[in-house]
Structures are given as C-alpha cells and as structure tokens.
C-alpha cells in the first residue's frame, strides 16, 4: 500500500490554531473560508493567489474533466476533509501573513495527493505501466505475483519528488494547468 502523509495535517493545524486562532479565523471567514469545503474551482480562484492556476486550468486538457479538488483532494472521504481542513487553514494563514514562496511550491504530501488523483481516474489506462509500489491496484505484479509489493527504494532527486518514482507528472506536467 502507498503511504500518503496527510495525517500530520490536523495535528499541526490544531496546534497552530491555538497560536493564531484570531488571525486565522478572521481570514478564513473573510476569504469565504467556509466555501473552501466545496469543490467549485471558483472557490479556489477566490484567492487571487490561485488566480494564475485557475486561468491556466481553464486552458488545460482537464478543464472539462477535473476541477481543482479532483486533483488536490484525496479521493477517500476521511482524507478529503483532513486535507481540506489543513490546506484550507494553512493557505488562509499563509495568505494572511503573506509568508510563502512565490511562485508557489507544492508540498510533497499535496503532490502525492495529485498522484493518487491521476490513478483514481486513469487507473485502468495505466494498469500495465503502473507497478504495485504505486497506488494503482491493477499492476503487473498483482496479475502475476499476487500483488506482492515491490521492495524498490524510490529516487527523490531529479525534478519530481512525488512519493514514488513512478510519478505521472514526471511526464504529464501540464495536465492540470499549463503554467510555462
């Protein structure tokens, strides 16, 4: 089974709330934080910081196929709300303090979420090329070796630092939003 570190989310969030609750709450409300829990791209775009990606997404091959949340939210129900809460909170906080890298840098756990999203929709198509140590359920080894998980370590150097080296966006960098 692939390991996707979303677990840290709520803990940190909780801790940080204690310190920054006033500020955080203010932003969260003002920036229509509540609607953050919906899946309407406009919600994300509601933050001008997200604007570029929104525009880029509208030009992407997925504009008809997938909205922000489809790629950036885990597809299992629990993880979904954990991620929304943590991202929602952290983004709100970051947005308010203005303290974050620009251009934005996706965080490893969020990168991993998108990698899962790909499989969620394309699992069938990539069944043949996506091995068992990736998230897809239908890998070659499951067909022949009863799904024995591979022991291979993963490279984290190179341009892609997804949770495993079988990253989709290693090649399909532009599917969500063509920034370059």
């Amino acid at each position: 089974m692939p390991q996707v570190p979303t677990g840290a989310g709520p803990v940190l969030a909780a801790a940080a709330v204690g310190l920054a609750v006033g500020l955080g709450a203010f932003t969260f409300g003002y920036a229509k934080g509540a609607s953050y829990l919906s899946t309407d791209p406009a919600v994300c775009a509601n933050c001008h910081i997200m604007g570029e990606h929104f525009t880029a997404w509208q030009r992407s091959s997925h504009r008809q196929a997938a909205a922000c949340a489809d790629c950036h939210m885990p597809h299992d129900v629990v993880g979904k709300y954990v991620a929304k809460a943590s991202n929602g909170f952290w983004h709100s906080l970051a947005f308010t303090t203005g303290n974050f890298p620009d251009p934005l840098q996706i965080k490893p756990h969020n990168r991993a979420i998108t990698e899962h999203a790909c499989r969620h929709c394309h699992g069938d198509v990539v069944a043949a090329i996506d091995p068992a140590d990736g998230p897809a359920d239908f890998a070659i080894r499951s067909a022949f070796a009863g799904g024995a998980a591979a022991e291979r370590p993963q490279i984290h150097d190179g341009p892609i630092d997804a949770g495993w080296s079988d990253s989709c966006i290693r090649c399909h960098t532009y599917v969500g939003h063509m920034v370059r």
Partner: protein
Amino acid sequence: TNIFERKQEARNPFYRVVELTDSTIDPAIWGKNFPQQYDDYRKTVDMVHTRYGGSEGTPRNPTAIDPRRVVAQSRLEEDPRLMRMWAGYAFARDFREERGHAYMLDDQVFTGRQQAAPQPGACLHCHASMYVAYKRAGAGDLIAGFERINPMPYAEAKVLAGNHPVACIDCHDPATMELRVTRPGFLEGIRTLKASQGVRAYDVNRDASRQEMRTYVCGQCHVEYYFKGKEKRLTYPWDRGLKVDSILSHYEASGHTDWIHERSGAPVLKAQHPEFEMYSQGVHARSGVACADCHMPYERRGALKISDHHVRSPLLNINQACQTCHKISEAELRDRVYLIQDRTFEMRNIAIDALLDLVTGIQRARAADSTAPVVAKAQRYQRAAQFFADFVEAENSMGFHADQEAVRILGNSINFSRLGQAVLRGERVPDAPLEGASGSAHQLPRAARPAEPIDRR
C-alpha cells in the same frame, strides 16, 4: 471492444496464456502472454534513417562467409578518414552504422572484423540472449558462466549462446515482469562505480529504483568496455567515474592499450558506444529522464498504455518520445536536435582533421628517427586526443545525450592533437595530461569561492 471487455482487460491487463520460466529464451513464447510488446519488439527490423541516426539499408550480394542481403551503410565509406584513424585495427576493415536490435547477433557474426582478427566469446555478452547461456555454462552460477565463456573462441561460444538477439528474459523477471539486470559486465561495473562514490556492496537488482532500472537495462550494453587480461574478462572502466577524463585515467593506471597505431606506432584506445556514460553527463539524466522514456515511450494500445518495444531513434517517434514533456511542435523538436548534432558534427570533423595531422606528423618524425624522444611524447598526445575524439564519434547520439559535454570533449581533443604537433617541432610543451587533469593550469580565485553567493556590501 465494449465497456465490459475493457473492464476485464483493465482489471487484469495480461492473460497468462503460457508459463514463463527462468529459462524461457524464445521471445515468441513470452509473446503469447504479451502480444503487443512482442509485436513492437519485432519491428526493430525496420531500417529508417534520420540525419545522423537510424540506419540506411544497403543491399549486398550474399557470400558464403556473409549471407546478409541487406546491411546498414558503411561508416568507413561515409568518412574515409576513419580508416586512417583506426589504421591497424579491425575497425578499419569494417564499421557500419548500428541498426535495430533484431540484427545484433547476425551483424556481430558476419562483420568483417571477425575475419580481420579472432574474437573472444566475451563479444556475445551484448549481442545475444546470454542469460540462460551463462547460467547453464556456470551450472546455475551466472558469473561462473560469464567467466567460462569470455575467453572461449567466438565460434565455440556462439554455439552455447544460441540464436536469439537480446530477448525478453535479458531485461525481465519472468515471474513479476519487473526489470532486472542480467549482464555481469554491468552488475560489476555499476558496483565499482558506486564503490568509488562510497556506496559499498551495491546490488543493482536490489538497490536501484524503478526509474533507474529503466536506464540500467540499456546500460548493460550501451557502454564503453574492454577485455581485461588473458581471461578476456569483459570490464567497464568506471572505477574513477563515468566522465571521459576518468575513463582515460583508468586506462592509464591499468596500462591497457587496444592496439598499436599502424602509422604512428602510438599505443591507442578504441572507444565504443559510451551512450550510458555520455547520457549521464547530460541534463536529461540530471532531470531523472531514463533511456526508456525516449527510446521506449509509452503508447496507447486499445484500453492500455504500454511501453513501445520498438526500440529506435526517438526522432522517428517524436510525438510519443518527446512531446509529452515538451509541448512544442515536432518540427521544432527535430530542429533542436539537429542544431545540437550539427554543432557536434562540426567539432567532430575538426577534431578528426587535427588528429590525422598529428598522426601524419608522428609518421614523418618516426621515418626520420623512430627513437627520438619527441616521438614518444607526441604518441602520448595522440593517445589522449584519439580517445577523446573517438569517445564522441563512437557515442551514437551525435552529441544529443550531453550536448555541451560532447563539445567540451572535442575541444580538448583538438588541443591535444595540436599540442602533439608542437611537441614534434621541439617546442616546450608539458606532457599529455592522460591522468585526466584539465588542459589549463589557470584557476580563477573565483573558482575557489563558496557555491553560495556571499553578500559583501
């Protein structure tokens, strides 16, 4: 196919029609389980050329010793200078553009180089499906079989090797279909390399990531090599690194020489297809792009994406090979490759001219007085210049795999050749830096600066 079938196919992409064991050599049998990969695999018989790559089918009249009706174009006819560059070595007799995997065994058996000189069994390491043959020859022990076959006369070894070019079993584990390295040359070569980087007891099949394996299976053969000692042990000269400078210094230390140049009498080296080494110096390697990404790109087949087993020039398949990562037109991508290759080709030609000027010079000097110390000194320059020039000439991407590095190597080669000529004219010139030191003594104080920028306001 209707949705129901697609689902079936998807849940279990491959139907196990036959049992594959660790001694199933014949790709046709594997092809029963994986018909699409097998179909592509067989397409490597195609001969299509690009500006510098692919291959050009040339008809010939079959003879008793060489029954081939079509061969790839002769590189010696394309560039006769190569015959003088390799004077006295089998390559001056027959050297052709390489072509698809389907031909690897025949082309080795029938090359004119076989008549020119007796070849050892070690040759087969990279031209036949050797995994099972090594296992059998070693009574189950791969390395033992390797050691037994290396020194055999080629014809004898060929009998053990059988009749298959590289086959499924040479890159895949029949049980899991996972990639695996089956070639002792690479198993040992990569271990030495990693050791030199401080990694102990590296086992490629245990320690490499999947993405690295997508390069290493090719690195089994597309590398510089030599036969060590009378055991003819196939060796990859990587104990000091993969750069040409490190490899030359390995040969210096080990005192290895391929042959004595017929015209100049210099103890020279022949570089051979260092694709893996050159690629490793390039920006694609740094970016984690593997050989298979470009030479075996994914293709959509029915409901599935699979790897295109028609291994070939990516320029014949730009859409799949390049455009997923580079969202620009095929024409523009081709032009970028050709621009890189044309620059490399220009420098390659200058380097070969310079090298032959030196060869002629040494030849004259020897005629006058073969014992003159300048001759020996100039011959060392030839050794360095020739290996550097050949390293790019023999590498098969005409510089694409590492564009700046390829031209850096040629620039050094030109300098070595011209300095060798200066030696002959009795000028005061330092000895050839065969231990791989840079060609210039100059070091800018800057070079000593820390990598991190410093604020000095």
